[in-house]
Structures are given as structure tokens and as C-alpha cells.
């Protein structure tokens, strides 16, 4: 199609792809979404990238390390809204162009299907958000290698072809790792179908499988250990870990080559194929119709495969990271995700707190029965968890989990920045400098880190001074070992009685764990935090406590709204009698504390 339609059509298609990627997919959301959980078994793994030779060197020793390095570098530019779509469009364009050039060389039909399928497949893969960019860089590099080989080996003798293949193969295999499967496989196909050199083709096919495995074994034996526990399947899995898009492409290429052979032998298949694929001599109108049908199918496939739920979760994460709290609440109200991963729970509570709604609306969103500030493996890598701890003033707890995260997920810039802030707040500028020095090598965060270091040199206030000042004003000064969430929040309040976040989170903790009496006892303190009315969930807890304890509660001057009382009375009616209708309770008490108390807190009465 590229050849047939020339530049304007190809440009238009790529333009549409770019716009789709920019406006719909929005790959910018991936930046800052490291370890955001999209579903039970999918999360974002955003790679670390540092400038400097040592980081490149670390990557280059591993097969496929070069494309990993390039992809990690390219992904950093996803921070800029147009750069991500541009990079992905370039990958698609390169695969399209490579297909259009490569397939005729292999005598495979380069019709509409051959050209549409890889593009659509790439878009479908990108639609999942969890794509591994290095694998697609590998695919492009493999197509480039096979084009180079075909160009260089054209009309050469077998020894020359073999020499060319070896010279191209060894560095390429090391550079692209598993994607070499496509490169060598395609060279084999070329020799088989075009030059009829069966033995040479077989040699290439063999090298397609063997060379990445041998390369991996060499690296493993040099840098690590091949022992009883290290099976061939493990080595093969490692060797081809990044090569599956290239493998799929090769499979598709093989299918198309076989279909070509089938068409040669069967006139019926040939005519049917031409009708579908448009490779035959068709009238312009028929060709246009078929192109339109294929285009519609492609668009449908792309739109159906677009993971909107993932986009919502990523968008929510993006709002949280940018501190756009009202928009985060609005997003989750307008498009509630099917599941709330742990990171999102921290974000939504923070958003509710920042917008002054935690006491009113927190139970409109799923809450954990234990309003957890406790360190858990699930919460540990979540940036939202670190930020919550830091904002509350739990500097040491935050330092603990961030160091653990650093150990497990690597030198993510946000972790380095958070550790620099903590160390500055704790009066350890020397340690903060070490983190800032590493951070200064990050593409996006580097400039700010360098400016911060320069300011530290001049003893000037830092850009992150606000965060440091805040942390200093709320962080614990008195030591306690292994405190519970409640002890921690109470100590934070003792440290800084104006720490409204600690107070609201303490109340949220009491509510979520069903400690109604403690909620009621804390009601007199509410006024000290500048509330102009009693938050709705607190009022609900008061009513509930009054009902369950059978006594009037001193509200310290607060009055309950008529709506609160009326809803509670309805609820009481519904919960009377032995056969309580849970669905009815849920309907009436939807979004209220009652739902959580009766249905989730495990303290039903």
C-alpha cells in the first residue's frame, strides 16, 4: 500500500494513527505510572533510564540490552504529551515501511492484509498499555537487518551471503536479543523462496533459534551460573523474552508464504484471496470498497481492544501525581473502574481529603476494612502510599517503604526524589545530595535535581522546600517502635495538633474499623480543625452509635441535618426484624457509612 498509494495516503494513515494515539490512547499517562496495577495480573513496568556510560555499559553486556536501553530512553520522552504518540507512530510507520519493502523481496504478497495486519496488531498491542516497547524496537531492528541482508546479498555467492549474514548477525543478535528470530528467519525465507538455497536457508533458520540461546548461555555462564536448577526452557524463555512480537510477525510471514504456495496450486484459493486482499487486478471501485471494509474491520479491532478501564486507572494516577484532586474525584465518579487496586484507594482517599470530602464521601468508594497505613507487600511499591505517608508526616515509615521499593523496582526518579526530600527534612543534606546526584542523570527530573544541587551548594532554599518544610512541621520527633495505624496517627496529632490530615485519617481509621465510640469521643475535636458542619460520615457514625448503645450522644454543639436523620430512620426500619434485606439496605445507604459498617466491617449487629 505504501508503494501503491505513495506518500499522501501513507502519511494520512499515519497521521490518523498519531491522532488516535495522542487523543485516545494518550501514552503520556504511562510516564509516572510505574507499578500502577491495571488488573490482577497486569501492571505497568516503566523502565529506569540514566544518562552516562556506566548505565549503557550495564545494558550492553546483556543480549537485547541495546534495544532495552534505547526503549528505556525513548519511554522517558513519554513525559511530553506528543512525544509518546510520535514514537509509537514511528514504530508503526517503520514496521509498515519495512513490510512494504521486505515482503516483495521474499515474494510474499504485500497486499492489503499483509500491510494492515501488522499495523492493527501493533495498535491492539499498544491499546493494552502494558506493552514492552523494547520488543517493538527489536521488531523494527530485525526488519532493518533483513532488508540490509537482502540488499547486500543480492546476486552474491553462497560464501559471500554467509559471510554477510554472519557479520550482520552477531552484533544484531546481541543488540536485539529475541527479535533476532525474525531477522534470521526472514533471511532464511529469502534464501528459500527467492534463491532456492535450501541448505543455506536451513542454516539461517537454525541460527534464528540457536544464536539467541547460545548468546544467552554465554552471558549467563560469564555473569552468573548455569547449574542444575537452570533448565533449557528457562534459558530459552530468557533468550526470547523480548522477541515475541518479532516471533508473531515471523509466524504471520510464514503463513502468508504458505498461502502463496497454496494459491499457486489452487485457482479457487487464488481468486478468493485476490478478492479479499485486493492484490488482483480489480476495478478501482471494488478495490475501494474492499479497502474500506478492511479499514472498518481494522478500526473496529482497534477500538474493541482499547482498554478503557486501564486508561481510567492511568488517568486517575496521572491526576493524583499532578495534584489535580478534584478532577480525580470527578473521574472516578463519572467512570468508576470495576476494581480499585491498592494504589488507587490511597489516591482517592487523598483526593477526598484534599478536596475536603473525606468525612463526607469516603464510603462512596471502596474502602479496606483496615484503613491501612501499615506496610504491606501490596502497598509498598505504590507511589500513592509513599506520598500519603509523607504528607501525614510518617517520614521514617516512608523512608522504609521507599528504600524497599528502590531495592525491588530500581532507581525510579520519584523514589530518589522522595528520599532526597526525607533526608533533607531529617537534616541529612549529605545523603540527600547522593540521591540528587543520581537523580540528576534522569532525562526528565535531571534538570530540577541539578538546580537543587546547585542551590544546596549555595545554601539556598530548594525547590522542594515546600515539601521539606511541610514534612519537618509534621514528622514525628519521638520514637516509637512498630506502632499500629491508630498509634501512629495519634502520635502525629500529638506532634502537630494542627495536622488535619492526621485527624481525618484517624477518624477514617475509626470509621473503617467500626470503632464508633472512638469516633463519637473525637467529635468535640472536629471544631478545632475549622469545619463549619459535622461531616456526613461522622454524623452517620454518631447516629449509629446512639442507636446501638441506646443513649443520646453529646454532639458538642453540632446539629445533624434532617436528611441524615431521615436516612438513618429509614435504614433502622430496614434493618429491623430477623430477615434483613441486604440489597435494600445497600440501596438506601449507598455511599453512606452504614453500608460499610453493616456489609464490610464485619461488625454487624
Amino acid at each position, binding site marked *: 500500500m505504501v508503494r501503491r498509494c505513495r506518500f499522501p495516503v501513507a502519511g494520512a494513515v499515519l497521521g490518523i494513527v498519531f491522532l488516535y494515539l495522542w487523543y485516545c490512547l494518550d501514552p503520556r499517562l504511562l510516564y509516572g505510572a510505574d507499578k500502577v496495577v491495571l488488573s490482577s495480573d497486569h501492571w505497568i513496568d516503566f523502565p529506569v533510564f540514566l544518562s552516562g556510560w556506566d548505565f549503557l555499559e550495564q545494558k550492553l553486556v546483556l543480549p537485547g540490552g541495546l534495544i532495552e536501553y534505547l526503549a528505556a530512553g525513548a519511554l522517558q520522552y513519554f513525559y511530553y504529551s506528543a512525544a509518546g504518540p510520535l514514537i509509537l507512530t514511528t514504530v508503526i510507520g517503520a514496521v509498515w515501511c519495512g513490510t512494504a519493502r521486505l515482503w516483495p523481496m521474499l515474494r510474499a504478497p504485500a497486499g492489503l492484509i499483509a500491510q494492515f495486519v501488522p499495523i492493527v496488531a501493533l495498535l491492539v498491542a499498544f491499546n493494552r498499555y502494558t506493552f514492552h516497547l523494547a520488543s517493538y524496537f527489536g521488531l523494527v531492528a530485525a526488519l532493518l537487518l533483513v532488508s540490509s541482508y537482502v540488499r547486500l546479498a543480492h546476486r552474491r555467492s553462497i560464501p559471500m551471503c554467509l559471510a554477510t549474514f554472519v557479520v550482520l548477525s552477531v552484533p544484531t543478535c546481541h543488540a536485539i536479543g529475541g527479535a533476532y528470530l525474525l531477522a534470521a528467519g526472514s533471511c532464511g525465507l529469502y534464501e528459500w523462496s527467492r534463491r532456492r538455497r535450501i541448505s543455506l536457508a536451513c542454516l539461517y533458520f537454525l541460527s534464528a533459534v540457536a544464536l539467541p540461546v547460545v548468546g544467552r548461555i554465554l552471558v549467563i555462564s560469564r*555473569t*552468573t*551460573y548455569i*547449574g*542444575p*536448577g*537452570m533448565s533449557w526452557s*528457562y534459558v530459552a524463555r530468557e533468550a526470547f523474552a523480548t522477541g515475541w512480537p518479532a516471533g508473531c510477525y515471523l509466524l504471520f510471514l510464514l503463513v502468508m508464504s504458505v498461502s502463496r504456495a497454496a494459491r499457486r496450486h489452487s485457482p479457487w484459493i487464488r481468486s478468493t484471496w485476490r478478492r479479499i486482499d485486493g492484490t488482483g487486478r480489480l476495478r478501482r471501485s471494488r478495490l475501494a470498497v474492499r479497502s474500506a471494509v478492511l479499514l472498518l474491520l481494522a478500526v473496529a479491532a482497534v477500538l474493541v481492544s482499547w482498554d478503557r478501564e486501564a486508561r481510567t486507572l492511568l488517568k486517575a494516577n496521572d491526576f493524583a501525581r499532578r495534584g489535580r484532586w478534584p478532577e480525580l474525584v470527578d473521574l472516578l465518579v463519572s467512570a468508576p473502574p470495576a476494581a480499585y487496586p491498592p494504589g488507587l484507594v490511597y489516591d482517592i482517599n487523598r483526593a477526598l481529603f484534599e478536596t475536603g470530602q473525606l468525612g463526607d464521601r469516603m464510603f462512596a468508594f471502596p474502602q479496606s476494612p483496615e484503613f491501612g497505613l501499615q506496610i504491606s507487600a501490596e502497598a509498598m511499591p505504590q507511589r500513592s502510599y509513599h506520598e500519603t505517608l509523607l504528607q501525614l508526616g*510518617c*517520614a*521514617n*515509615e516512608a*523512608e*522504609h517503604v521507599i*528504600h*524497599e521499593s*528502590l*531495592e*525491588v523496582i530500581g*532507581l525510579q526518579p520519584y523514589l530518589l526524589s522522595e528520599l532526597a526530600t526525607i*533526608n533533607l527534612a531529617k537534616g*541529612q*543534606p*549529605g*545523603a540527600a*545530595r*547522593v*540521591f540528587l*546526584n*543520581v537523580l*540528576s*542523570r534522569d532525562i526528565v527530573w535531571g534538570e530540577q535535581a541539578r538546580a537543587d544541587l546547585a542551590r544546596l551548594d549555595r545554601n539556598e532554599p530548594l525547590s522542594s522546600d515546600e515539601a521539606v518544610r511541610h514534612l519537618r512541621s509534621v*514528622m*514525628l*520527633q*519521638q*520514637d*516509637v*517502635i*512498630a*506502632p499500629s495505624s491508630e498509634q*501512629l496517627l495519634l*502520635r502525629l496529632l500529638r506532634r502537630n495538633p494542627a495536622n488535619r490530615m492526621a485527624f481525618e485519617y484517624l477518624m477514617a481509621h475509626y470509621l473503617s474499623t467500626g470503632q464508633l465510640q472512638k469516633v463519637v469521643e473525637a467529635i468535640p475535636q472536629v471544631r478545632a480543625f475549622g469545619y463549619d458542619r459535622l461531616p456526613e460520615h461522622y454524623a452517620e457514625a454518631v447516629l449509629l452509635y446512639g442507636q446501638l448503645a441506646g443513649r443520646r450522644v453529646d454532639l458538642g454543639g453540632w446539629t445533624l441535618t434532617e436528611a441524615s436523620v431521615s436516612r438513618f430512620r429509614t435504614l433502622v426500619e430496614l434493618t429491623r426484624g430477623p430477615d434483613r434485606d441486604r440489597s435494600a439496605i445497600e440501596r438506601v445507604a449507598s455511599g453512606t457509612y452504614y453500608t460499610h459498617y453493616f456489609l464490610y466491617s464485619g461488625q454487624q449487629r
Partner: protein
Amino acid sequence: MSRPRRWWLALLVVLLFALMLTGWLSRLPTDLPRAVTMVARPARIAPDYTGCTLPPNIAPLNFVVQEPGTQYRVHLCAEGDNGFIVSSRDANIQMSAELWRGLLERNRGNRVYWRVLVRDEHRQWREFQTIENRIAREDADAYVSYRRLTPVHTLFANMGTFQRELSSFAESPILVSAVGLSRRCVNCHTFSANNPDCTLLHMRGTDGVAMLVARNGQVAKVDTRSATNPFPASYSTWHPNGRVIAFSLNDMDQFFHSAGTTRGVFDFHSDLALFLTESGQMVTTPAISDPDWLETFPSWSPDGKNLYFCRARRTWPALRKKERIVPADYRQVRYDIVRIAYDEKTGAWGKLETVLAARDTGWSVTEPRVSPDGRFLLVTMAEYGSFPVFLDSSDLYLMDLRTGKYWPLPINSPLSDSWHSWSSNSRWIVFASKRDNGLFGRLYLAHVDEAGQVAKPVLLPQHDPRYYDACLDNFNAPEFMVKPVSVSQREFLQAIYSTEAQSVVMDKQSCSVDSSGKAEQ
């Protein structure tokens, strides 16, 4: 030759010529400028290599001149030795290893001088006050091994034990956590009398818990746990004869503070035992494994006749792992240094003798290491507990074993100084200190003279003088070695993945036991 090819060739020649010309023009002169303005203070350099005593066999002390300038020149010389000049366009001063080694070798026992000259943006040269360092007469041991790990808390994805040749920057792994199919915690390592022919490493993780005992090139995986002893071996020490290993069995936990230093370690229970490598037996005596006392950090005297260790009374009941919590008075747990005589031939134990009591020092005294000449005992003192590396209060103290006097080293910093080791000639110590930033431990080498005077330490140099500025690794548990570990990482891994772990059973009957267990003051 065709015309285009001729053009290409000509272009190549021109490019080569241009490259050579650029190289020649950009070379820096290696002489000192004549017109200079004197500055009445030394130049600021990092790391702070000023007034130190240097081992004659140390790698070049590359440094950064922290003075603004456009060109830098450093003249390294000594009395009667013109030395050499290093020129640089940037502030990084990196020296030729050969010239550096020659200068140190020629000037053992003498002072070396560094004249630092900086050219400012007005092309004026400024010369700072000369920096002075001293070269010791005695070499430090040729190698140092240490652990590198990020400031981890409970996870161990990237840690390892490494060895470094002191005279160069060559570092190689002995065993790192992330090789093989699984990851493991690689902990303390020890050698017999600084000789790595007898090497011991500890590891914990999914591959099991074991001591990796390497003797004369053979590695054995030894699991010291049993039904009666559920705790793994931790801190160890080889007897100088290379046949006996003393080690502690610790039931320790890491805990976290909510304010101040984040991490802490608490020993709920600890005992000592010996592993007899030739018979494969594990023996102990109540004097070193009293259930009412915590015994840890064993260290043999250089003659092998005494086992030094630290111990503190246990004031809390034995609890199961899930039930136990760090006692509220954990800051009151302070360790004494004690020693017990041991006859390796008969297996007979002597009586406990307190060497340094916490009630006298007011501090918890841990990590005893006797100098190989038997003269000094180097210990760490800290506010409390047995894990001084996490405590800012920890300092190094030297005790003269002849007189019983002890004193803090003048080189202590306000932050953590701990994990020390002696070189085999007793003239050098290497220790880990967090003096630079409070979080990341770095290794320092300090000279100790015959009278126990300790000179200003020198930071273990790196090829890139800015290396530590962006290094997130902690360097700790350094040990001097006279030569590199001959067992390869692969051999250690083979032992780790071997299904044949040598299980040893505590045999309290096989040795003569002094059951009094009372310390003799």
C-alpha cells in the same frame, strides 16, 4: 583507482589529519606556570585527602578540586623527589597509576606534597597552600573484601560480597545476591588470619540458610540449624589454625523507629558454638551459650588461645517468633567484652573473663577484634545494642591489652563508625563510617602505630573521584586479606545449589565443658 574512491580516500586523510591536529592542540602542558598568585589557604578537595597517612600500596587518590577554574594542575612531590604533574581541564584530578606507585614507593615513611594550581577565567593562575600527606612505611594487606548493599531494610535484591585490590581499582565479586536463579542475602564473611584460603560466607534466602565454608579451594555448604537449635549461624571467626570456626547463633530481628534513625536490630537470643571443620562437629559450652545471656560477635585472639566475644544479660522471656516484640527497655541492653580460653588440641575451655564491661564504659561494647600482634583490642562502643552500624553514637575504641587502658580513636566522627578489621601486620585498620552523609557507609583505612596512635584515615579511593557522590551502596563489613579469594563465584554457587548440605548437630558432650559460666572479673 576510480575518481570517487580517490575523493573518499582524500577525505579520510584530511579527517585523520584534522583529528591529530585537534589532539595535539588540545594537549595540556605538563609543566607548572611561572606567574602565579598565592592563596593563603589549601584548596578544597574532595574526598578530603589532606593530612592523612597513606598506605604505600594504595591506588591513586584521585580527587576533585572544589575551586572554580578553567584549568587545573597538581604537582605531587616529596622531599628530594620532584614527583609528577597532573594537568586537567576540569576539576577531576586523575593520576597515572604508574607514576603514583613510583612516588609512594620511593617515599615510604616520608611526607608527600600536593601543590594545587587553578587557572581562573581571567587566565590567572592561583596556587593554594600545599596539601601535605604522609606515606607510612608499612603496607596494608593487598586486598580488602567488603559487603556492598543499598540501605536495605528487609529485602535483598542487590547485595554482594566483593574484593578489591588495594593498589588498583579492580573490584570483583566473591558472591553477589542476584546471580543464579534466585536471590539471597549474602552476609558476613570471614577469613583465617587474613588469609582467604580459609573463607567463610553466610547466605540466607530461598536456596536455604547456610554457611559456605571454603578451605583450600573446596566449598562446603553447612547448615547449623537443628531441632534443638533453630537459629542460623551469623557472625563467625576462623581460628588461626584454619580448622575451627566459632560462630554466633542469633535470633535477631530488624525493627523500625518512627523518629531519628529508621532502622534497628534487636537480638532476642544468641549463643556461640564452634564448628570443627575436620570432624564436621558442632560443639559448645554453657559458658558461651548460656540461655540467660546473649553471646555474640566471636573473635579469636591471634594465637588462637582465647575466644573474645560480647555478651549481655537477657532480661526478657523466650517467645515464639510471632509473639515477640522488641522490649520497651531495649536501650538498656548493653554488651560487655569477655574472653574465654580454649585449647584447640584438647577442646578444653577456660573460665570467662570480662575484658571491658558496659557498666564501666557506660556504652554497649561490641565487635571485638584483637590486632594480629596481640597488643590491641579494637572495639565499637555505642549507646546500646549489638548492631552499632545503625547507631550514630557508635565509635571505635582501642584498648591496650597489656595495660587494660582504652580510649576512643581520635578519628571517630559524630556519625556511625564501626565494622573494623586489622591488617595482618597490625599497622592498618579498615572500618566503615557514615561520616559523610549519615546514611551511606564508606570504607576508610587508618594507620595505627606501635603506640596505638591512629592517623587521619583515608577514604578507599575510586577511579572516578566523584564515584561516591552518586553511589547508593553501603560499604560495610570490610576485612583485610593478604591475597584474593581463590574460590570463584561459580564454585560458591555450585555449593549453594547443591542438594547436599552438610547438616551438623550440636554435640555438647564431645568437648570438655566448664559449666560455671560465670565471668571472672
